[in-house]
């Protein structure tokens, strides 16, 4: 079987296993949507707030489906010795990890689409300014940056029991300063600088432009460059420190 066919096969296998894992399905699919419903209910669904919340949840979904999911997944696969077994077979690493990544990307794409649709159908957010190309570009940029950072993160996690602590230490502060649930225009200077240095704010800014304001990619080159820089860093760390066992 060719490498491409094996990658496709691995992807389909990962999809099947994903849906059999209730906790993975919950964290990847249900959690961002629960956040959306709860926050929209608690803080009211004024258009101004929804214009912040919907792209924020879309960005959160990109991060959970890639960064969080891959950091957990790779740690589990390594600790269980599954990576070591794969390494002893003729399975090309490109096909194996390609299948794993494609699974995460599929989750991210489906989640972003769901959030955009729910924002429109349930909360009446207009699609007048929706820029699908820009949406795809920033989703992809977020997936690459957070996916590679998730794999890099897994190298730092000593064992599966420690994974939630490591992941949340990064994940929770980042979602609170990056304008996921509320506007961060009045954030203290230090936190604002931190948010600008981290990738999530740039994903959300780009997604907001694509979903809400309709300002084109040309106005968000800085955010895109920041994500490219994080991707280069993430891929470098992910490859450089990769451990099979």
């Amino acid at each position: 079987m060719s490498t491409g066919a094996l990658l496709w096969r691995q992807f389909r296998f990962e999809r099947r296993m994903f849906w059999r894992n209730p906790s993975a399905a919950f964290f990847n699919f249900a959690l961002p949507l629960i956040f959306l419903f709860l926050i929209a209910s608690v803080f009211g669904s004024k258009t101004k707030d929804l214009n912040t919340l919907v792209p924020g949840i879309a960005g959160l979904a990109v991060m959970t489906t890639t960064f969080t999911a891959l950091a957990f997944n790779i740690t589990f696969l390594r600790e269980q010795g599954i990576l070591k077994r794969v390494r002893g077979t003729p399975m090309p690493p490109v096909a194996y990890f390609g299948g794993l990544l494609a699974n995460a990307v599929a989750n991210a794409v489906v989640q972003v689409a769901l959030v955009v649709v729910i924002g429109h159908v349930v909360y009446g957010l207009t699609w007048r300014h929706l820029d699908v190309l820009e949406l795809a570009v920033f989703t992809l940029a977020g997936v690459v940056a957070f996916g590679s950072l998730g794999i890099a993160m897994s190298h730092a996690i000593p064992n599966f029991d420690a994974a939630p602590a490591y992941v949340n230490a990064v994940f929770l502060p980042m979602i609170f300063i990056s304008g996921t649930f509320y506007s961060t225009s009045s954030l203290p200077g230090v936190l604002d600088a931190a948010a600008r240095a981290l990738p999530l704010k740039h994903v959300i800014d780009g997604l907001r432009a694509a979903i809400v304001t309709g300002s084109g990619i040309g106005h968000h080159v800085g955010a895109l460059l920041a994500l490219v820089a994080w991707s280069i860093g993430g891929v470098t760390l992910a490859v450089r420190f990769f451990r099979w066992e």
Partner: protein
Amino acid sequence: MVRERASDRRPVRLHGVAPGWHSGSVPEAAISVRDLRKSYGSVEAVRGISFDVARGEIFGLLGPNGAGKTTTVEILEGYRKRSGGDVSVLGSDPAARDRGLRKRVGIVLQSSGFYPRATVRESVEHMAAVYPAPRDPSETIALVGLEEKRDTRAGKLSGGQRRRLDLALALVGDPELIFLDEPTTGFDPAARRTAWGVVRKLKELGKTVLLTTHYLDEAQSLSDRVAIVKDGLLIAQGPPSELSADRARYRISYRRNGQLAQHETDDPTELLHRLTGEALERGERLEDLSVSRPTLEDVYLDLTSEEPS
């Protein structure tokens, strides 16, 4: 306990380097290892090991924990890089991580996991797709005796069943050479007999097996030849029966006045004649009289004991 040894006991054969190991001496060798060395920092885990495994042979690698067995096997499997020496597995250097070689080799690691939510059948079928000419997955599941569990998820299998799934995953690619690292650890006696049957079947199919085990009866029963590793060196190798023979051919034991007496000799006929003659003269019986061959376990314990012999 009286423990006598025949005075003409021959010394144990020790190999630093075995005879006939000049370049290309065994063209049909599945595995060839020459002066293999591996250091971790300043610690030398393997300090110059050499052996050959012929095609179609079951070769047992024995030794205490930390002797260097697993390091040696993992170098042959391509998981670790050696520090020195030469290694050839089916004609290739495993350190090159050549995909073609991995198509011809099956590995049962000491511990490795499965996708817990994949069934036995799904796991085996998924693995089969990776190989160019796999065995039939159902037949492979039957070979290791997991038919009744084929629709059970891997995460729900017992320890012994997981080990059999390990074996199925290693065999489904129909490899020429199979590494078995402690394949029956945690098995009950019946499951071990079944697993031994599988290994013998592999031999009938002409496969080569490198077996690492802690069970000396397993090594003795399955292996054509064994090698004993201690402190990173190979201290003995040969067919199990010959290793035993090197020590002393026969052991005669009996009970006299409630005390166990043991003699080791190369000539049991003469010794038995003398012992029984003396007993008859005294008007005694030699209770629990038995003549046995020393087992591989005796040899192993003798060779690997910490006391200087």
